[in-house]
C-alpha cells in the first residue's frame, strides 16, 4: 500500500486512488486551506492558499528530500513516499500573505454579507490571517451586478477563485460566466444578453467560498447562524438528491445539496433548490374536513375523531380502492396498505398518480434531472407488491372507478403542483365514500367526502427509493403546520399503535417481510443503500 507522510504521520492510501495532497491530508486530520480547488471541478491552482512543503522519501534508504519551494497542494498528486508538511513557518507565513493580499481588495462588509458565518475568507482569516489590516483601500460598499434570474454578483467581494466559471463550463455545460479584464482588475461577468440562466445555476452560490455570488431567493432573508440544518432528500423528482434543509422556527429558508457520490455528487438543480415554497403556501389544506351531506360545506373534524370515524365510514361503504402516492415514504405507504387491508380484506391497492414532465435532462457533469416528478415510485411499488401480486397503476384505478368496480376510494396525493383535471376526477364523484389526502385543493378533493391535508417533503420522515434503487432515510426537518397530521402519524394511529410515529420500527418490520427491501433492516448510512446490491448478495 502506498504510504504518504503528513506532518510526520504515516497515512496509507489505496493502490489505485488518485488523490491530491489536500485529500490525503484531510484523511490524516490536517485541513489544508483552499479556495479555488473543489473536488467536483478541474484544478487551476490559482488561489495559492493551499501552498505546502512537499518532498519524497526514498523507498530504499528512507532518506527524505524536500522541494526547495512551496507547491500547491491541490495540484500535487500524493503517491508512495510523498512527504507533506503543512505546519512550518514558511507555510504559515505564505497563508498569512495570501489572506492579506485577498483582503486588500475585499470590502469588509461582513455585517451585511449573506455569506458571513459560512465564509471561507472569514474562517481562513481567523485561522491563518493577521490581526491587523495594513491597508484600507476600498470602501465599505461592494458593487453589485445582476448575472441572472437566480443569482446576483457582488463584484468587489470576489476573490477570483473561478469556481463558478469552471462550474458553468464543466458541469452545467452552459459557459455563461467568464472572467473579464486582467490582473488586479479581473472580474466575473456574463456576456451581454446571455445571463446565467440554466437549471443548475444555484450551485454557483454554494460553490462561492466568499459572499460574491448571492442567491436572490435567500438574499437577506436570514443570517446563516440562525438556521438549523437537517439532512433530507429532495422530493422534486425521482433522482432523490441528498439535500440539507435549512430552517428556523419551522420555516424553511433554503435547501442546499448534501454531498452524495452515489446520487447527486455536490449539486442539486434549481427546480429542487427553490421547490420548497409550496410548504409555506397559504393555500395549503390545514385541517381535516368531512363533507356535510346537507350542503357542500365541510365540517372540521378533530384528528382523534378522524382515526375512528374514517375507519367506520370506509368499512361500511363497500369495495375499497386505495391509491398509494409515490410522494409517500415507504413506511407511510406500508402503513396505508395495512390500514386499508384492515378495513377491507379485499381492498385493491394502486400505485398513485406518477407525475411526469418532459424528458430526463442530463448535464455534462454527470447530473440528471428526472422527468418523473415524484421521489418514491420504486419504493411504493415494492411496498404494494408485498400486499398484492398484481401491479396496478393510477390509470387502472381511474378506469376501474369509471367502470363502477368500487364503492369507496382513498386517494393519497401530496403533489406540490396541480395534478388532476375535472374530467379525470368526475367519475370519483359517484363513489359512496371518497377520501382525498392532498396538499392543495384540487378538482378531486372538491368531490371528496373526507378531505385530509398532506405533509410536505420536509415534514415527512421515512425512506424514499430513487430511480436508481437507492434507499435514503431521513427525518422530518420541520413540523407540519398546525392542524396537519403528517400521513405517518395518521396511519400509525389508525393502526392502533401506541406512542409517537416511529419510522425506524416500521422500517424494521418491512425489512423482515420483504426480500426486495431487506436492506432497510440494517443501519443505513447517510448516502443511502442500493437495494439491488443486497438482493444480489442474498440470491
Amino acid at each position: 500500500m502506498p504510504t504518504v507522510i503528513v506532518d510526520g504521520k504515516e497515512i496509507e492510501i489505496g493502490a489505485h486512488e488518485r488523490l491530491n495532497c489536500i485529500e490525503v491530508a484531510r484523511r490524516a486530520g490536517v485541513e489544508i486551506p483552499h479556495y479555488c480547488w473543489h473536488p467536483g471541478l478541474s484544478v487551476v491552482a490559482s488561489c495559492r492558499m493551499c501552498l505546502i512543503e512537499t518532498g519524497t522519501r526514498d523507498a530504499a534508504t528512507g532518506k527524505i528530500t524536500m522541494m526547495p519551494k512551496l507547491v500547491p497542494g491541490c495540484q500535487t498528486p500524493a503517491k508512495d513516499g510523498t512527504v507533506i508538511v503543512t505546519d512550518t513557518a514558511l507555510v504559515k507565513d505564505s497563508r498569512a500573505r495570501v489572506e492579506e493580499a485577498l483582503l486588500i481588495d475585499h470590502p469588509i462588509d461582513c455585517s451585511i454579507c449573506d455569506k458571513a458565518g459560512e465564509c471561507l475568507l472569514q474562517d481562513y482569516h481567523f485561522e491563518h490571517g493577521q490581526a491587523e489590516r495594513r491597508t484600507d483601500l476600498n470602501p465599505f460598499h461592494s458593487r453589485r451586478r445582476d448575472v441572472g434570474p437566480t443569482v446576483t454578483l457582488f463584484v468587489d467581494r470576489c476573490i477570483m477563485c473561478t469556481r463558478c466559471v469552471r462550474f458553468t463550463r464543466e458541469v452545467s455545460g452552459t459557459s455563461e460566466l467568464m472572467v473579464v479584464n486582467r490582473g488586479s482588475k479581473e472580474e466575473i461577468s456574463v456576456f451581454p444578453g446571455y445571463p446565467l440562466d440554466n437549471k443548475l445555476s444555484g450551485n454557483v452560490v454554494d460553490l462561492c467560498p466568499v459572499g460574491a455570488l448571492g442567491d436572490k431567493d435567500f438574499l437577506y432573508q436570514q443570517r446563516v447562524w440562525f438556521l438549523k440544518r437537517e439532512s433530507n432528500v429532495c422530493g422534486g423528482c425521482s433522482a432523490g438528491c441528498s439535500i440539507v434543509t435549512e430552517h428556523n422556527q419551522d420555516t424553511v429558508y433554503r435547501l442546499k445539496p448534501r454531498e452524495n457520490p452515489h446520487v447527486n455528487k455536490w449539486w442539486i438543480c434549481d427546480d429542487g433548490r427553490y421547490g420548497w415554497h409550496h410548504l409555506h403556501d397559504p393555500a395549503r389544506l390545514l385541517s381535516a374536513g368531512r363533507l356535510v351531506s346537507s350542503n357542500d360545506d365541510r365540517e372540521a373534524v378533530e384528528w382523534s375523531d378522524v382515526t375512528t370515524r374514517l375507519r367506520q365510514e370506509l368499512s361500511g361503504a363497500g369495495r375499497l380502492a386505495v391509491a398509494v402516492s409515490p410522494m409517500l415514504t415507504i413506511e407511510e405507504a406500508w402503513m396505508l396498505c395495512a390500514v386499508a387491508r384492515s378495513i377491507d380484506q379485499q381492498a385493491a391497492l394502486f400505485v398513485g398518480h406518477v407525475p411526469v414532465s418532459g424528458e430526463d435532462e442530463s448535464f455534462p457533469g454527470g447530473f440528471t434531472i428526472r422527468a418523473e416528478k415524484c421521489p418514491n415510485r420504486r419504493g411504493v411499488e415494492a411496498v404494494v407488491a408485498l400486499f398484492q401480486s398484481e401491479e396496478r397503476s393510477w390509470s387502472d384505478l381511474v378506469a376501474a372507478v369509471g367502470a363502477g368496480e368500487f364503492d369507496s376510494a382513498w386517494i393519497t396525493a401530496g403533489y406540490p403542483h396541480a395534478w388532476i383535471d375535472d374530467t379525470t376526477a368526475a367519475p370519483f364523484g359517484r363513489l359512496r365514500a371518497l377520501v382525498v389526502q392532498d396538499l392543495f385543493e384540487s378538482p378531486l378533493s372538491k368531490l371528496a367526502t373526507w378531505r385530509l391535508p398532506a405533509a410536505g417533503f420536509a415534514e415527512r420522515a421515512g425512506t424514499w427509493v430513487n430511480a436508481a434503487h437507492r434507499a435514503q432515510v431521513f427525518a422530518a426537518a420541520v413540523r407540519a403546520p398546525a392542524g396537519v397530521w403528517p400521513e405517518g402519524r395518521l396511519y400509525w394511529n389508525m393502526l392502533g399503535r401506541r406512542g409517537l410515529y416511529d419510522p425506524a420500527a416500521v422500517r424494521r418490520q418491512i425489512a423482515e417481510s420483504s426480500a426486495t427491501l431487506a436492506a432497510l433492516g440494517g443501519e443505513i448510512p447517510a448516502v443511502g443503500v442500493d437495494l439491488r446490491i443486497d438482493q444480489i448478495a442474498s440470491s
Partner: protein
Amino acid sequence: MKPTDPAITWLEEKPLGLTERLYLPLFLQGLSTTARHMVSRKVTVNYPEVRPTVGNPLIYRGVHRLNRDDAGRVKCVACFLCATACPAHCIDIVATESPWPDREKYPESFSIDELRCIFCGMCEEACPVDAIELTSLLDLTGKSREEMIFDKEKLLSVYDMTKDAEPMKSKTLAAGGMATFGSAPGSPAAAVGGHH
C-alpha cells in the same frame, strides 16, 4: 483546578482575639455606619414628584433608540448582530434590500419587545454602525403589551426626542468623551412611554 494543585495557597483562619470575642468594637462600627447615613446627603428621591438624576447618561441603560444618519435615514444596516447578541431574544428584524444606492441592506421592520428586554446593553455593544443605543430614559410605561413592543418608527422617534440632550455616543466619545457631555439628564424622560 484540583485542591492538590501547587498553585493554590492554603490559608488558616486566624483565631478570634479578645476584642473580637467581646463583639463591642464591631457593634460600635456598625452603629457608626448607621449614624453616618443619618446625617449624610440623601440619595433617594420622592419619585415621581422628584426625578432622579442620572449620573452618566453615556453608560446608563434605559429605553432604546435607533439613530439616524446625516441624511435622516435609519442608520441600522440590518446585520442582526444585536438580535444575535440579545440574551432575551427581544429584537425582531426583517431585512430587505435598501432603496438607496449607497446602502445595500436595511431593516424593513425593527422591533424591540421592551417587556422582554433585560436592559443589558449587549445590543448596543454588538452594533457595528452605532445604530442602536440605550438612552437615559428610565421610566417606561404602557397600557398594553402591544404598546410595549417598540417598532422602527417609535425607536426613531425616541432618537428625535433625545438627540439634543444625548447626542450619538459615537460622536460624543469622538469629541472627547464624557467630559464634554452636557448635564441635562432626565428632562425628556417623561415624554416617552405610554403617551405615544
